[in-house]
């Protein structure tokens, strides 16, 4: 009898072992992202570490997909013939599109299934990706816009290097003092310079406490049907600031996007600029010891604005592959990417700020902050913003942002005045929204 029992025991042990071994082929998932340069290198390292930690169980293949714009196109094209990847990094303005597409598996479902504690995530950040109390994607590389200034230049110009300008009135005042002209009148340093970046436009709306589109800024039950920035005077205020800057001769136009402005700041050709927190690390690396970098809150349009900034950057979306094993594996990967240690590393390498509250307690994070206090400004700015300024959701955001940049250029060239710019911009964006709603 005992022999039979032990035989049965041995047999079931073997069976158990066998099935465990059989289940040991690692689940393979694919992760798409749009981080290049230094940030891309950080991602590669993070994935490598994950694969090492989960060896034999999960294997992540990471693929860079070009810019955010290119990446979202890939998903669209591939989406027609099946999901091309499991986890995808999509930019902030692609959120509405992803929700509408039906390809995304809201992370809320995984959260509910596991009972994951959502308070671990910074509420202001989660707010952006939450609609109707449902968190659709997991925030990952979040940034806010920041003001950067050259402390050394400030001291030279007789300005207090510890005080950053808070609004455009102050910026213009300081810029006049910071400008350096040589003997023949050629400007070797402008006080202020910024890139023509559509994102800033959206941020200023929030700073003024205004909506970009209708239907509760696109977050209502129905999607947005038109812009409201022409009705509220918000666009006008922003374009007026541009006009002032150009007319006063205080800035030089530095093109679309941020790269030229960054380079100009690094080489000392401009003393104040606006950029994302995500650029902090690369700025520190490239500036080195040439001068000290100061950071301040994103400037107000009017001195008495009381709104806040919303986050930019991107988030991780899980795609509906219908394969349970892969979806579970993807969830593990997503949780890993936002775990405090990983976020501390990510923050130190890039300047994106940590989305997990617990990160602030980690030594790695605190040490980095002590060495580079500039990292703290973005966090403070976010904490002092109320969640209601979480920003708009719009299906045609990429096109809208591009149109904002185009019309800003037109304004700067003097092709049209402020009123006309606002009018035409609103018209074009509205038409794009209409067509999208008609065909989708």
């Amino acid at each position, binding site marked *: 009898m005992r022999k039979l029992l032990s035989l049965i025991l041995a047999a079931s042990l073997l069976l158990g072992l066998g099935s465990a071994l059989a289940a040991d082929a690692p689940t393979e998932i694919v992760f798409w992202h749009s981080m290049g340069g230094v940030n891309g290198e950080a991602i590669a390292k993070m994935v490598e570490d994950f694969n090492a930690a989960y060896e034999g169980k999960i294997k992540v293949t990471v693929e860079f997909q070009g810019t955010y*714009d290119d990446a979202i*196109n890939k998903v*669209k094209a591939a*989406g*027609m013939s099946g999901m091309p990847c499991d986890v995808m990094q999509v930019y902030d303005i692609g959120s509405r*599109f992803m929700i509408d*597409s039906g390809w995304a598996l809201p992370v809320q479902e995984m959260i509910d299934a596991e009972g994951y504690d959502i308070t671990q995530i910074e509420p202001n950040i989660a707010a952006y990706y939450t609609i109707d109390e449902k968190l659709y994607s997991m925030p990952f590389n979040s940034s806010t816009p920041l003001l950067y200034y050259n402390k050394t230049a400030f001291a030279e110009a007789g300005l207090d290097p510890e005080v950053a300008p808070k609004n455009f009135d102050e910026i213009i005042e300081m810029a006049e003092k910071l400008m350096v002209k040589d003997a023949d009148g*050629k*400007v070797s340093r402008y006080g202020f310079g910024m890139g*023509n970046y559509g994102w800033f436009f959206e941020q200023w709306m929030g700073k003024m406490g205004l909506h970009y589109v209708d239907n509760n800024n696109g977050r209502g039950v129905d999607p947005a049907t038109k812009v409201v920035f022409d009705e509220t005077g918000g666009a006008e205020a922003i374009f007026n600031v541009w006009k002032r800057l150009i007319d006063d001769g205080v800035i*030089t*136009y*530095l*093109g*679309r996007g941020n790269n*030229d402005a960054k*380079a*100009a700041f690094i*080489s000392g*050709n401009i003393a104040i600029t606006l950029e994302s927190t995500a650029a902090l690390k690369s700025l520190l690396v490239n500036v080195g010891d040439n001068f000290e970098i100061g950071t301040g809150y994103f400037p107000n349009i009017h001195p008495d604005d009381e709104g806040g900034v919303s986050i930019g950057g991107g988030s991780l979306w899980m795609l509906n592959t219908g394969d349970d094993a892969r979806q579970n594996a993807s969830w593990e990967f997503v949780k890993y990417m936002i775990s405090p240690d990983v976020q501390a590393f990510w923050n130190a390498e890039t300047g994106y700020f940590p989305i997990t509250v617990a990160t602030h307690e980690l030594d790695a994070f605190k040490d980095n902050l002590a060495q580079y206090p500039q990292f703290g400004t973005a966090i403070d700015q976010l904490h002092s913003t109320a969640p209601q300024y979480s920003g708009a959701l719009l299906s*045609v955001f*990429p*096109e809208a942002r*591009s149109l904002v*940049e*185009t019309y800003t*250029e*037109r304004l*700067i*060239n003097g*092709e049209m005045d402020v009123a006309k710019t606002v009018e035409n911009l609103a018209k074009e964006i509205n038409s*794009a929204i209409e*067509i*999208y709603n*008609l*065909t*989708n």
Partner: protein
Amino acid sequence: MSLSDSLKTRTAKPRITVKKGFYATVEPYLFLLPAFTIFALFLFYPFGRTIYLSTFLTDKLGNAKVFWGLGNYRDLFASSSFWASVGVTFQFVAIVAFGGLIAGLTTSLLTTRKYPGVTFASASYAMPVAIASAAASMAFRMILHPTNGLLNILLGTQINWRGDPNWALFSVSMVTIWLASGINFIFISAGLRGVPDELYESASIDGAGYWRKLFSITLPSISPTLFFQIIINIISAFQSFSQIRLLTEGGPGDATNVIVYAIYRDAFFNFRFGTAAARSIILFVIVLVITLIQFSFEKRSVHY
């Protein structure tokens, strides 16, 4: 017996003179089959499809959704942005086609004689042919940088070559001319080589100087080459894309928004495949008309 008769009787196999077998009639088409299959699949069919798509409004995935008839065309013709795009394209093509020709002509003329270093010079002038437009665009992105670029360093200026609407088109054109100079050099040099020396010698005896010879002999003699080259330059200029994408993204405003780039934006950024398709059909018609005009021009000014 004549030669042909003897040839005929030499072979043992009967020479088929009248009845062309089935295989013989079909054979030429078999030779053409591979090429035409590819053309059919990837040129004729998509072209037809594009015409079809241009009459629809599409959803974000590119499926034809709402029949729109000529609506897309109507909207385009009514849009100032579209006409700005057409204007920009024509300017760009004109600058680049003639600029490339002149660049090629200059470099060819500089290398007709034999002197030490002429092989190196020739290789260098042809070299742009081997450089990808994307690679060159990235390199020129650096060169044209407003604060740290080579051009501003050398000239001592602070011009924003890519962001200033007055300079953007010029900058993109210069990059394209640089790229095109290679193929222009190759073909025009070939043409120059074909001009008989006697023409020059008799002109020298008549006392003609360098410039006289250039305009009365060289240019007329290579006019077929120049004509052919301009057509190639024009067709190629209409298709220039990566320079625009990497240097200016169609901006500032619409300053460098050539039709090709507008098509890309509409299709792959705004997700409006119908409008993009309409633009490409319009582009095709433009290129066709220009080429036809050029061929009629040929009869009048090209000397053989």
